[in-house]
């Protein structure tokens, strides 16, 4: 592989690494799995990089490839985290103003998201990233209508999960 391409790739990835971290945060529940998934995404991105033609922004391309990696890994390795204790799933969330009650709610929310399936998590990621439904549909290979329906179901599902835990 061309070393200049590698230098360029490493620089771009370093700048945009939070995209990968955020996906890892939704798909994994501990630091070890976070690192593993991050590494898998980096390797996948690197292998796909020669095909990246710059039609879209690096960040857009990177989140799509990374999300696909997370989905396929989740499927092949069956990295189910449904057994993770709700209390264990905290990833040191830092706020401008510390609010223990809100922190607790966020902890519950992240844990609830991690209980969703691979595609649902991808939908949540794109929703949080404020992607429009056209892009969500295109990325996941589903219709726009289907994406909306799925998103509404996810919201209800999360609401119910939180309700059961006495959260938000």
């Amino acid at each position, binding site marked *: 592989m061309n070393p200049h391409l590698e230098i360029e790739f490493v620089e771009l990835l370093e700048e945009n690494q939070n995209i990968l971290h*955020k996906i890892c945060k939704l798909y994994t529940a501990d630091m070890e799995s976070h690192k593993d998934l991050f590494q898998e995404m980096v390797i996948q991105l690197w292998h796909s990089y020669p095909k990246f033609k710059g039609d879209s922004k690096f960040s857009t391309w990177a989140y799509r490839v990374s999300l696909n990696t997370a989905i396929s890994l989740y499927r092949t390795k069956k990295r189910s985290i449904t057994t993770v204790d709700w209390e264990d799933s905290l990833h040191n969330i830092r706020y401008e103003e510390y609010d223990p009650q809100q922190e607790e709610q966020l902890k519950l929310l992240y844990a609830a998201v991690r209980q969703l399936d691979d595609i649902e998590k991808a939908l949540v990621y794109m929703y949080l990233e404020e992607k429009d439904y056209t892009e969500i549909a295109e990325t996941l290979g589903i219709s726009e209508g289907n994406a909306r329906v799925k998103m509404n179901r996810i919201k209800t599902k999360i609401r119910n999960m939180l309700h059961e835990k006495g959260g938000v």
Partner: protein
Amino acid sequence: MDGLDLLKQHWDKDQNFPKIDKEEIRRMLHKSSSSIVKWIFIISIIELILGTLFSLSMPIAPFNETETIVLNIVSVMFYLVILYFITRFFTLYRKIKVNDSVKQLMENIIRTRRVGQSYIKFNIIIFTLAFMSGGIYGILESANKDGDPVLPTFAIAVFLCITALFVALLIFFYRLIYGRLLRKLKKNYEELIELEDGIKE
């Protein structure tokens, strides 16, 4: 407020992630080295098992007591050396898998290649010596039994040709299996060197 909306509010603010630097990203890209070394390690173990099974299945020649002792000592020494190589491959695999810097990765790739090459040389030399000594010993023994005073030169010459053929096959086998893996490691190493130069420029 809807659960996800609360999450959304905090999503962009949350920047508390481990910072992965360029060096670490590069190390991740060259992770393939660890899987190559893992394969070298696995193949060397398979080879050891197959070699042991093969030697156990061979008919035992009617050696006298001294010869048997010598043979056993040689065998034990041989297996100790093989075990040493396998342990080295395993420790190198562990090091490559967990090391943190590209420099360390490069050093370990060089080490693995060196150990790999020594392992191949050792196996070829031992095979040649064992095959030759065993064959020539057999020829001389049978000539002695027949009471033939003339040295069976022709039989020895034919046997040496057969040995050369077997050694050539063995070299081919090693080139095919280990050579391929070691070349991949070399390529990976060269990429790292080019990269280092590229960064310095």
